[in-house]
Each structure stands twice: as C-alpha cells, then as structure tokens.
C-alpha cells in the first residue's frame, strides 16, 4: 500500500512537471498526452509490483520529454501554416545550434523585409506617383533602384509607371511564397534528419 501511494505521488509529480512544461499547447492536446503517459507508466509499474521508478525513467527527463513534444508540435504546425509567425517559430526549433537558429531567422526576416518593401512601393505609388517607382540612370546598369520614400537619384528616369502597382504586389506575393516554401522545406529536411530522438544505443 505504501509502495502504491509512493508510486502514485511520483507519477503525479512527474506528470505535473510535464504539464507545466507543455503549457501553451492546446489544453485538449496536453490532457491527451498526459493520459497516454499515465497509462504507460501505470501498466509498467503494475508489472513491476507497483514500483513506478523504472517506468518513469523510461520516459526520460520530464522537461526533455515536454520539449520534444513541443518541438514536434511547432514543426508540424509550421510545415503546413501560411502564417509567417508560426513558420518563424518552427524555424527556431529546426536548428540544433544557436547560430543556425539566428541565421535561419535572419534570412527569413530578410526575405519578408523585401516583401514589405515591394508592397510599400505599390502603396506609395498611389499616394506619391512622381516619387515612388523603379528608377534607372541611363548608362549605369547598377543604378536600378526601387524608391518608396525620399527622392529618386538625379538624372534617373522611372521605368514602370503605374505598372509598378500590380508588378510590386505580384512580386511581393512571389517572394513571400518562395520564402515560406524554402523555410518549410528546411523544416521538413530537419525533421527527416532528426526523426524524434535517436534510438538507444545497444
């Protein structure tokens, strides 16, 4: 009876720590995870004469376990989401090193900065048509510049006129699509390479 009580308290303490570390996930999902873990531990403990210690050890550290669940959840959502914030969060989990995380996030944000610039140019063209545009200085191939605010370079001429509006909107969508797909490809690639955690070494 004492062993049973002690085991129950160990199980509840362990599951309580997993629950705390899973906070933020949908409540229904957390309940389902904990119910399954409890079922696993109780069955193994019953086989061990009521001792839950070995069963809890087989689950590993509660914080590591919760981290794996959270990471899998974020990656799954990011893979099929259209929200840049969800994809960005997925990218955070899709790198094992700190530098990898920073680099992937920086590239993703750089891509989105281009999207914002293109759409800002389209909007600006509506309000300041003589200033916003794709400007080019004849004779200088490197002078092509998209102006959204400020003045265009001296001696340059605008190339697209009102076509800038649809062109910038479409280009923004294309860049956004490519950035999202590349990020999701990266996440998928990471998941394939690190399917859950490695198997126990035999």
């Amino acid at each position, binding site marked *: 009876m004492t062993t049973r009580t002690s085991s129950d308290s160990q199980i509840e303490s362990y599951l309580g720590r997993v629950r705390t570390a899973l906070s933020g996930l949908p409540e229904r999902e957390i309940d389902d995870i904990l119910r399954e873990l409890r079922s696993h531990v109780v069955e193994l403990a019953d086989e061990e004469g009521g001792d839950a210690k070995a069963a809890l050890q087989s689950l590993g550290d509660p914080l590591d376990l919760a981290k794996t669940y959270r990471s899998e959840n974020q990656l799954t959502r990011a893979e099929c989401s259209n929200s840049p914030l969800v994809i960005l969060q997925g990218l955070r989990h899709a790198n094992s090193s700190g530098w990898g995380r920073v680099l992937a996030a920086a590239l993703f944000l750089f891509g989105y900065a281009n999207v914002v610039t293109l759409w800002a140019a389209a909007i600006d063209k509506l309000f300041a048509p003589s200033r916003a545009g794709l400007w080019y200085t004849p004779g200088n191939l490197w002078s092509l510049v998209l102006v959204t605010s400020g003045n265009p370079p001296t001696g340059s001429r605008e190339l697209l006129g009102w076509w800038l509006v649809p062109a910038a909107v479409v280009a923004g969508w294309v860049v956004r699509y490519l950035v999202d797909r590349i990020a999701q490809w990266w996440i998928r690639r990471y998941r394939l390479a690190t399917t859950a955690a*490695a198997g126990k070494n035999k």
Partner: protein
Amino acid sequence: MSTYKTIESSSASPMDKWEVQLRKGCLELAVLGCLWTGKLYGLEILRRLARDSDLDLSAGTVYPLLARLKADGLLESEWVEADTSHPRKYYRLTASGKRRAVEMAKAWSQFSATLQSLLSPLLKERTK
C-alpha cells in the same frame, strides 16, 4: 535520467554515430511497419520494435513520434477502456499511412538490395 543517446553526443565513436543515424533513418518506417497488421498501443509498439527490429527505443522517443505521425495524418488513435485498471490509446494506420508505409518499404527494399550487391564482394573477402 535520460537513457537515450543523441546525435550530438560528442563522446560517441564515429561508428556509433553512424549506427545511430542509420537507426534514426528507419525509425518512422519501423513504427509504420509495426502497425501494418493491426492496431497496437504505445507499450506494445515499443516491445514489438525491440523484439522484431532490434530498435530498443526509449518511451520518451516513441510517444512524441507517435503524436507527430498522428498529426501528419499517417496514424489515427482511439482510447479503449481495457480490462486493466487504466485505458489504453491504440494506434492504427490511416489510408495515407498505409500508402506511406508501402512507399517507404519499397524504397528501403530497393536501396538495401542495391547496397547488398555493392557490398557482397567486401563481405566475401572478409570471410576468406
């Protein structure tokens, strides 16, 4: 407390790391293969993997993987009130899971056969 070894484990020998990578690569296939014949719950899957595939995995590895395969639509689950004191969560393959399992098994089989023909001279040499 954690009993599983990760790829980042710096103390592992190159051979250990290679073997870990190899096992990781076929983990998803092994789980889908376990469920080919019917529904199983988590502990049964763990024991089946250990018995039939030499993949002695920790529960902390397999349960999150099952959750992910379910989120991917490859598995579905149901709670069954068993004769025991606790309910059990049974998993079974979805139609999409069955397709994926067959595709992966074919790819694995083809790859394994090709590699076998490449390695057979090496293995013959070893037995001389």
